[in-house]
């Protein structure tokens, strides 16, 4: 606790003169400033990139969702649990990693999405337990091979945690203290020997235990402001994190499946399936590790899905719209440029509007006009 940065002790430091950020325009409305702030935060995500850093492409990510009583709070519509289980979490499922979320570990996103949809109806009772969930995650993660990055993402909504580690009946303050000392020991365990990175997204307020936990393991801790901020924070976790120097790099033996149609059906089995090229055992979903011969089975699109992290698209140059000569049409969507700034791709010099720029950097990961000039040259 002594090596904590000075600034964080003075929590008021982050709140000095916040009124100066907001400025009123002539009619007294704050709308322009608020839009500007939102706009800057959108752009920040695009510009921040790590540069020439080795990324941990193969990830084992354990997502823990708090299902305690505090998830029934209505501050996120319709209630916190439903809001968490909706699309933002499903976006993480689309990345190439093994996600475990109270189903068995699997690489197939559809299973997780189905499980999440079913979980919307669970009744939230009781108190969450950080210790138990971390324990469970570590049990599974410690068997994962060394070249993958091991991560835990906890979505915590309650301000307390109820753990079997403390056996005394004490007030809440003392419970936190006991847990803190226990967790510091266990985080040493986590960070040194197992290289597990724990990140937490808090739904209610900042909790000291979480801050310490994430700081010691090298993860990130954020508390959400509203739903769109929640979605942005989850999207931050989709990007592969830079690896630590102690992780191993290895060549992994993988097989491409062969898809064949069976001529017969049996009760409970489906027509066709994926055959392991080495031992011909049949699987209905991919990616999977063959239980017979141990070969990892993938298909090329699974690997291609992650390529955009390795070859990231450069951020476009922003400039005010008045500088544009010629007709004001966005080259991607053919719409008029009505926003106050335009974006130019540094390689092909085409002009895009704000929405297209956001879409290109978030989902598309390639400039539509560069594709044309690439092939023509």
């Amino acid at each position: 606790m002594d090596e904590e940065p000075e600034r964080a002790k003075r929590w008021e430091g982050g709140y000095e003169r916040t009124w100066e950020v907001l400025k009123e325009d002539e009619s007294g409305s704050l709308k322009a400033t608020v839009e500007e702030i939102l706009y800057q935060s959108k752009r920040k995500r695009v510009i921040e990139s790590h540069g020439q850093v080795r990324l941990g492409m193969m990830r084992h990510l354990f997502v823990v969702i708090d299902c305690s009583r505090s998830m029934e709070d209505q501050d996120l519509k319709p209630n916190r649990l439903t809001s968490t289980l909706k699309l933002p979490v499903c976006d993480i499922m689309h990345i190439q990693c093994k996600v475990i979320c109270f189903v068995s570990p699997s690489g197939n996103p559809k299973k997780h999405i189905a499980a999440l949809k079913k979980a919307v109806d669970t009744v939230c009772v009781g108190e969450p337990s950080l210790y138990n969930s971390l324990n469970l995650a570590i049990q599974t993660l410690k068997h994962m091979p060394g070249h993958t990055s091991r991560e835990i993402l906890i979505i915590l909504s309650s301000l307390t945690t109820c753990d079997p580690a403390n056996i005394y009946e004490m007030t809440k303050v003392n419970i936190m203290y006991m847990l803190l000392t226990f967790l510091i020991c266990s985080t040493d365990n986590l960070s040194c020997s197992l290289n597990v990175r724990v990140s937490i997204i808090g739904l209610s307020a900042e909790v000291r235990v979480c801050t310490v936990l994430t700081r010691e393991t090298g993860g990130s801790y954020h508390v959400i402001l509203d739903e769109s901020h929640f979605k942005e924070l989850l999207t931050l976790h989709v990007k592969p994190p830079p690896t630590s120097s102690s992780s191993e790099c290895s060549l992994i033996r993988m097989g491409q499946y062969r898809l064949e149609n069976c001529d017969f059906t049996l009760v409970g089995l489906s027509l066709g399936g994926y055959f392991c090229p080495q031992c011909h055992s049949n699987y209905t979903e991919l990616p999977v590790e063959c239980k017979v011969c141990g070969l990892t089975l993938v298909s090329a699109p699974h690997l291609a899905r992650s390529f955009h992290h390795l070859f990231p698209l450069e951020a476009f140059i922003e400039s005010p719209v008045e500088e544009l000569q010629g007709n004001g049409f966005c080259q991607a969507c053919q719409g008029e440029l009505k926003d106050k700034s335009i974006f130019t791709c540094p390689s092909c010099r085409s002009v895009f509007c704000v929405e297209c720029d956001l879409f290109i950097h978030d989902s598309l990961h390639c400039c539509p006009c560069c594709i044309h000039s690439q092939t023509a040259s």
Partner: protein
Amino acid sequence: MVEDEVNLLVIVVDVNPIWWGQQAQREPQFTLSKCLDAVMVMGNSHMAMTRTNRLAVIASHCQDSHFLYPSKSWRTGDSGGDDASSSGDGKYELLAVANNLIAEEIRNVMSRSKGNSTDTLLAGSLAKALCCILSMETASSFVIYDVIKAAEDCARQYMNFMNVIFAAQKQNILIDACVLDSESGLLQQACDITGGLYLKIPQRVALAQYLLWVFLPDSEQRSQLVLPPPAHVDYRAACFCHRNLIEIGYVCSVCLSIFCNFSPICTTCETAFKIQLPQMVKPKKKKLKQTM
């Protein structure tokens, strides 16, 4: 029928001039104008099915892609534009406007076309279509992209094409493919990943029939129809050293490049790999039995 369901059909037509020029000599009954007639029939049928259906047509050229319909001047409103082109034969006005616009725009595109590559630039057209559809701001329930492909694939487009396919999958957009000449591995993968239909047309002259019977029904109706079975997609990747298609290979965990043989250093990212050596077993000292 739900009232405010908007089905958007986007037809991407490959108008590579070299392929179509050769085609006109090979088979004069089926030229680019016949192909576009079939496309217009399909577009008209789609718009005529429900009032809320919408259409967009894109021509994909070897260097660029152009929106044939709707054109730039149409973007301001649904019914803005040409009142003067009401057709004389009593056709529904929207269809007449659409047909005339498409015909005029394709003439513009082909007359000013330059370029001599034999490949098709599909990735670019699909990317532009995605941006445009997104900006239309309609709450489209279903969007289907119908790609009519003539010339061959361009291998350099692989990465961009895959990015576009994944972006489409995220937006729940189906990509169908109607292939006129050579089989296209890229489009087969696109249809498989997004859940669309892939079909290589056996008889090009009957293009309109195939379009109407196979590609016009939307995704809900397709489950009730007997449609051509999904094509067998070859998902084997090519190794980076020899460019052979392999079934079992080695993948570098850092840069995801694929090799057919184990090597201690990755040639793409120059990472040294940890090699699993067999463990050294100390030879046990055996007591020699004394033979008597």
